[in-house]
Every structure is written in C-alpha cells, then in structure tokens.
C-alpha cells in the first residue's frame, strides 16, 4: 500500500512536468462559485464529478474530483478526515485571528491575507498527501482532475491546491500470460505506467536510469516514458527514438503497438523491428545491455528497441538456466524456427518436384499414404496451414473454456476426419502439426506470426519452382532482412555485420561468468558489464 502511494505521488509530479508546456489560458477566478461553474462547464458536468463543499475557518472551500479514477480512501482519510479533524482548531484559529484583526479597520487586504494564510495552513499542515501543488490556471486544473487529482478551491483565492490522488481500480501484478517462464521472476507489467516504472526501478537501482516522459494522444493524453541508462546506452539511439516519438500524432493509443508501428523503420516488413514484452526482467536486462525501453500508460507491453533477428529466438529463460541446457534450448529454437518456416515447403518441393531426394523407403510410404488424396501437395499444404490458422484464430478470440472445445474439434477435424475422408494424407498432418508446435516454441509471439506468414510464401515458392524456388525465396527473405533496420541498427546483427564478441550470446549462451561485455552491435558507451546480461542488481 505504502509503495503504491509512493508511486502515485511520483507519477503525479511527472505528469505535472509534462503538462507544463500547455500552461496558458484562463486564470482562476477568485469567486468559488464561478470557479466551480467553470469547471463544470469545462468538463461538461459529468455524473462522476464530485464536488464537496466545506466551511473552513469561516471560508468556503470546495473539494473537486472525478469519482472512479481517484483513490477514495486517500481522499477520505488524508484530505477530508484531516480537514475535519483540524476544523475545530482552524475555526478557533480563525476566530482568534478574526479577533485579533477584528478591528474596525478590517480591510479587504487582511481578508486576503487571512485566506492566503488559510491556504498555506491547509497546504503545509492539514493535507496529509505529499504530492500537493498550487495551480493558477483552469486548464491545468482540469487536466489534473481528469488525471485523477483532487482540487481544493478556496473562496477568494485564485490559487488551487491539487492533490495527487490518482487511483481507482487497476489490475494487480500478475505473471504475464504471453511470456511465461519456468524459472524467473513472476511479475509482469500492468496497465498502470507508474506501477510499470516502479517495477523497472526496483530492478535497476541505478541513479543513471532515466525516465524521459512524453505525452502522446491528442485526446487521450497518455503518458509515454522512454527509459534508458545514461552512460550505457548510445545517445544516438536515444536521440533517434526521441526524434521519432515526437512525430507521433494520433488521438488515442490503445496499446504500445501504436508507437511501435509509428516509429518502426519499415512498415513494409513482415518482421517486427521493435520488440515488445510484458516482463520487467526482460526490460531491465535490455536496458542494461544498452537498449531503450518505451512504456505507455494503459499498455502492459513495453517496447524494446533496437532489436535484431536473433532476439526473436532468445528468451529470458536462457539466462535463468545453466548455460548448457540454455545453449541446447537456443539451438532447439533455431531448429524450430527452421521447421516452422520451411517444413511444409520442403515437403511440397520434395514430394511434388524431387522425390529422388527423399530416402527411398520414405518415398514409398509417402506415396502410399498420398494414394487417393485428391489435391496436389501444395494445395494440401496450404489447406492444412489455413485450417490451422483458422483454428488458432478461433481459439485465441474465444473464452478459454470454449477455446478448449475448438482444440478438440480442430484436433478431430485435422487429425482424424480429414485423413479418414482421404482429403489429406497422414504425413501432411504430421508436417502441419510439427510446424505448428515448432512455431509456438518461438518465445516472441510477434515473430511467430511473421514466421507463420512467411510459411505461406515459401509454400507458394516451392509449389512453383520446387527446391529452386524455395532457395530463391530464402534468398529474397535474406535480402529483405539485410536491408532491414531497427532504429538504424541492421536487423541481421550480429550475424551480418559480423560482431564476433556477440556470438557468445547468440546461438550458444556462454556461461554467465564469461558474458562480461555488453553487445558490441549496440555500440554502448560503457562496454563492460561487470555483471552479466540478465542483471537483477540486488541493492
């Protein structure tokens, strides 16, 4: 509880900084009623707007906040309750003050002094919230209120106290579904950016850790944080990312993928040029490698840039296992990637074009199982792959319980009925199933989708020109990859351009004690990482 409180306070401060640029326009009126009326007007008098009026030391004050995005407990306990506790004292003070000043020559000026005294008193003594500031323009106040702050208007004052009470319902920190590990921390990002920042800060207690804040979304005014470690990350990368982020011009970003799509190098590419993750440990280790992370309020997915092709086949799990099993898993993943992309097309090329390249016995058994199958291998492969994609898509969008049904139906349809009906051959079922399993063994879902798409391209190439077409398609994909960049870094590093040092953590994952350098391809300022890559510094 105390922690989340701390978060909120800090986040509030940052929001205020971010909103500084929009400081202009309407000044706050001295009359409380006018102010309240203006506020109502500005916000369109919504039903969730709560205005509570009080009399404090003889002065009318009003507390204004929006229900639901504020922390009710905080408002009740730390604002209302403290005010009411102090009411007596304030009133006596007020009356004493008034007694002292209750001279015939009570002027308007002294009344103002009294009010400002009241404001200072409330500001300094009464409100039990650290994040409290004074504002003077209506715009600022309305933004802050929309962000979950509570405004305290005092009659006769053109200054408003804004108290950071952002809160309300939010998801608890859970283990991310999209990337689960067997061994490793169980926390995952949530929709709340302050929580997310905290999660990173708890991993990296480095004074050089930077959170650069932007506000994106014309209407949504979402907070966007660019995080990097100064002194490690190459400033060129940070500058380039900042430059691209400034070009974002959009009403509302439902997820960080909007940012990804906005700032990526080539939107024509099927490959994701920015990595996204739900895991704080993944972000932290990437930051320590010298990468940049981008967080967006409202999205549990952090973006990591730059990234390369090899990152797609690496998982945090690799660092949490001992190096031999980790290396084995890496190799397995490369093999799986190969299967996921190539297996059906190799099948098509060999079966339709070059049966001479299959071992004799296997040829005969494939021929026997294909006996009576009405489609050529290419159509069969595409048919099965599409069926699989349909099943997968249907399964993803459905509630988990129904999704199971889809799985059973799908399994039956593909595995049993289609074969016994003689529409597809059992070998094709094996190929499809193996491909599907292989494609899901790739840790990054975005890459999985890419590979599944590429698979079709390869099947088509193989069905036109057999093995020759397959190799040409492979070359085409390679040409695309070598010309692709992620924030200016070639996508195929460290394969090409070649960085020998990075090969210790590429296909093999060298022992942690040997991973003493940050990736060379990132051209970090500080190359030496005393601690290896998956840094969880324990302070």
């Amino acid at each position, binding site marked *: 509880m105390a922690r989340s409180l701390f978060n909120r306070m800090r986040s509030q401060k940052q929001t205020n900084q971010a909103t500084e640029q929009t400081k202009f326009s309407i000044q706050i009126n001295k009359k409380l009623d006018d102010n309240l009326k203006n506020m109502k007007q500005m916000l369109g008098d919504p039903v969730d707007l709560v205005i509570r009026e009080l009399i404090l030391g003889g002065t009318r004050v009003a507390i204004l906040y929006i229900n639901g995005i504020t922390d009710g407990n905080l408002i009740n306990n730390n604002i209302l309750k403290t005010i009411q506790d102090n009411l007596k004292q304030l009133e006596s003070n007020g009356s004493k003050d008034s007694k002292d000043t209750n001279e015939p020559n009570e002027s308007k000026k002294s009344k103002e002094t009294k009010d400002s005294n009241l404001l200072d008193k409330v500001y300094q003594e009464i409100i039990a919230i650290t994040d409290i500031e004074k504002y003077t323009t209506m715009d600022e106040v309305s933004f802050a209120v929309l962000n979950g702050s509570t405004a305290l208007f005092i009659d006769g004052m053109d200054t408003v106290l804004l108290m950071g009470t952002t809160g309300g319902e939010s998801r608890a920190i859970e283990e991310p579904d999209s990337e689960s590990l067997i061994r490793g921390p169980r926390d995952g990002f949530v929709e709340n950016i302050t929580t997310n920042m905290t999660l990173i800060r708890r991993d990296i207690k480095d004074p050089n850790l930077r959170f650069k804040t932007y506000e994106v979304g014309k209407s949504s005014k979402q907070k966007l944080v660019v995080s990097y470690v100064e002194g490690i990350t190459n400033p060129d990368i940070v500058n380039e990312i900042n430059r691209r982020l400034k070009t974002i011009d959009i009403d509302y970003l439902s997820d960080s993928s909007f940012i990804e799509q906005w700032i990526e190098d080539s939107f024509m590419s099927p490959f994701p040029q920015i990595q996204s993750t739900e895991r704080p440990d993944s972000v932290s280790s990437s930051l320590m490698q010298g990468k940049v992370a981008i967080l967006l309020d409202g999205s549990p997915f952090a973006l990591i840039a730059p990234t390369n092709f090899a990152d797609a086949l690496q998982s945090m799990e690799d660092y949490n296992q001992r190096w031999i099993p980790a290396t084995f898993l890496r190799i397995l993943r490369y093999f799986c990637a190969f299967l996921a992309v190539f297996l059906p097309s190799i099948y098509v090329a060999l079966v*339709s074009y070059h049966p*001479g390249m299959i071992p*004799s016995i296997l040829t005969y*058994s494939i021929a026997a199982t294909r006996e009576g199958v009405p489609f*050529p291998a290419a159509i069969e492969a595409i048919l099965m792959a599409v069926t699989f994609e349909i099943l997968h898509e249907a399964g993803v969008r459905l509630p988990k319980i129904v999704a199971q049904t889809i799985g059973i139906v799908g399994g039956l349809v593909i595995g049993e009925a289609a074969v016994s009906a003689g529409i597809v051959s059992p070998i094709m079922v094996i190929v499809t199933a193996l491909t599907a399993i292989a494609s899901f063994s790739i840790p990054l879902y975005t890459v999985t989708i890419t590979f599944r798409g590429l698979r079709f391209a390869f099947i088509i190439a193989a069905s*036109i020109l057999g093995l020759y077409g397959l190799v040409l398609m492979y070359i085409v994909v390679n040409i695309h990859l070598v*010309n692709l960049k992620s924030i200016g870094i070639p996508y195929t590093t460290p394969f090409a351009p070649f960085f020998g040092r990075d090969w210790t953590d590429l296909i093999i994952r060298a022992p942690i004690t040997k991973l003493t350098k940050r990736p060379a391809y990132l051209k970090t300022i500080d190359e030496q990482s005393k601690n290896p890559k998956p840094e969880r510094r324990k302070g």
Partner: protein
Amino acid sequence: MKSKLPCLSFTFCLLFVFLTGCWDSVEVEERAFNTGIAVDLAEEQGENTTYEMTTQFVVPSGLGTAGEAGGGKAFRNLQQTGESLYDINASIARQTSEKSNIEHLDVVIISKDIAEETGLFTNILDVFVRQQNMRRGILLAIGDEKAKDILNVEAEQEKVPSQYVTKLLEGNENPITTEPVRVGDIQEYLLSNRSFIIPKLSVFSKNSINYEGLAVFRGKTGQMVDSLEGEDAKGLNMIIGKNQQGSITAAVDDDQVTYSISEGSSKIKLTNKDKNNLVFQVDIDLTAQIREFNGSLDFYKRENMDKVEKVLKEEIKKIAEGSVKKVKDDLQVDVLTFGNYLRIHHYALWKEVEKDWDYGENYFAKSDININVNTNVQTPGNSIQLTEDDGGEG
C-alpha cells in the same frame, strides 16, 4: 525504400504469373518408382530388338505402412524389347498410368548372356552413367540365367524383389561374396581398363535368390570371361584382402574342423621387377576361431593348437593358389588388383606394362605369384571338447 516498391510489386506480379506454371510438378503418388531393372537378350532377335528389359516398379500401397500390412503385390514388372534401353524405357512408360521415375533405382541385373557378348555390357552401362537422373550408387549384378527371373522372386520378408536383391548384395559378408559393386565403380574400372568382378546371382527356389559367386570381367573389353565360385572366390578375397571373414573347413588328422576367420589382411609385394617375369609376393594374415570340431583334441596344449593352425595355413594356401591358377593361368584376367598395386607403388613400371597388362602381351599371366599365409587361431571356442579325449594325449 521508395525505389524498392515498384520493384517488389513487379516481382510479385511475375510470381503470380509463374503460379500458372508448375511445369515439373508431378505428385509423388503419380510417379512410378523404378527400383530394379533386369536386362536380357531378346528371345527373338530382330533388327530393332536386341534387349529385353524388365523394369520393376514399386506399388507403394502394396508395401503397407508400419501400422498395417499392405495388401496385394508390392511390385509390378513390365517388359519391352528394343534396341536402346532409353527407348525401351520410353515404351514401357506407355504401359504405365504414372510417370516413370528412375531416381530410386537400386539395382540393375544384367544377364550372363549379355555380359558374355562383346561390347553389349558397356553399351548397356552407358545409359546408367550418362542419364542425369541416375545415381552412381546403383548396384550391379549378373543374372546367371534369365535376369528377369530374379526380379520375380518373392521372398517372404521383402515384398519387392529388387529390395531383396539390394539387401542381399549389400549385407552379405561371406568369403565368396564381394563388396557391392556400383555403376560408378564400373565406369572407373572400364575407363582405366582394370578388370573387375561383379556379384553373380541365380534363382535358387521360388522364394530365394542365391549369391552364387563372382562374375569376372576383362577391363579392356568389358566382357565377362568366367565366374568364380566357391573356393575360387574365397581365394580371390583372401588375396585381395577384403571380405575374408567367413568359414573354412579342413581336416586335422581326419577329423573335420571348421574355422571362422574373424580378421584378416593381405599385403602385396613386388619381388622381381623384370617386366617379363614379375614376381609378386602375397602375405595373407588371418585371425581365426574354431567353430566346429568333430574330433577331440586338448586345445590347452600348445602343440595341438599349432597343429590346428598349420592345417588352416595349408588349407588357405591351397585355396589361394587354386584361385591364382584359375585367374592368372586359365582366365588371364587381373582381378587380383596386382595392376592397381603396380600403379600405386611402381608407377614407372606400371606405365611400361599398362598397355599390355592383362591382354595382348599379358604381363600379368607371365608373372609369378607366391603366397605366404600367417594364421593365428585365437580361441578354441567356449568349450574344450564335447567327447572324452582319448587318442590325442601322449
């Protein structure tokens, strides 16, 4: 990026045009896989009918899968006669509903009649090394009588006769067999005029094929001169130093003893370099075990073991000399690899005699071959004797 866009779209458009192509796409089940070929002389020799070719196609559904046994015959033999094998293949293709595919061709069996005819064997072989779909690993065998009969033998365990033949050729380690002979090897022999041997098969019964022996070919003419069987083939392997493992039966004091040779090697040496009277020394080294013994000897005694070894030595020497006599004196064809030895170790001498090695002047037939055998009988087997030893002691 911008410049790439038209290029990319152009490529994709063309790819879609290619989609209508698929010129060479033939589904695997629409191909007829040719696993074995047998070539015979045509029974009725006409102007355009020299050969009769039998092609064996696999019927995949007949093979069945691991789960269920296939029903029906797993092969199909088609025959045609004609002048050139490629031509015959084309006419056989007219009989099949599928597209003939020779990439899985395992074995070619050529009948003895063809092999003995001048020039026919080399003519036949040409198609197998020239055609790009052919592999150099296709096995060759000679059929004792009609080659096509061999492709009709249905063994119980192998549903396709040519696979049976292939496994027979590949898996046999026996002193009268040789390593599998491939088409590529024969090309090598023919090009360098080296004489060679090819396994000879015959139909033994309705469901078995017998590895009968080795057909001997003269490298210069590519013509089969004779075949080595039994002891002669054994002797050949002893001298070459390959495939020596096997059994030898001899008699020790009238008691029959059977040895199995577990290891062996041979070494050729040239002792006289006069090209008109070359003398070769062959050292054969063998390690053997006793497998069967009808007498009773106490093998724990050194002299008994020596006796057994000596018998083996003499027996092997006899066998080797027998085959030398047959090969060198009767057939005058160097399949004993002496020529190769000369090429490797006495290149200058070889250059002199190469042209008339085992033909013409035939320096090979003029040479002398001395055989020297060393044997080592390692163990007598698990038991010393089966019956009471009565006579051997003393």
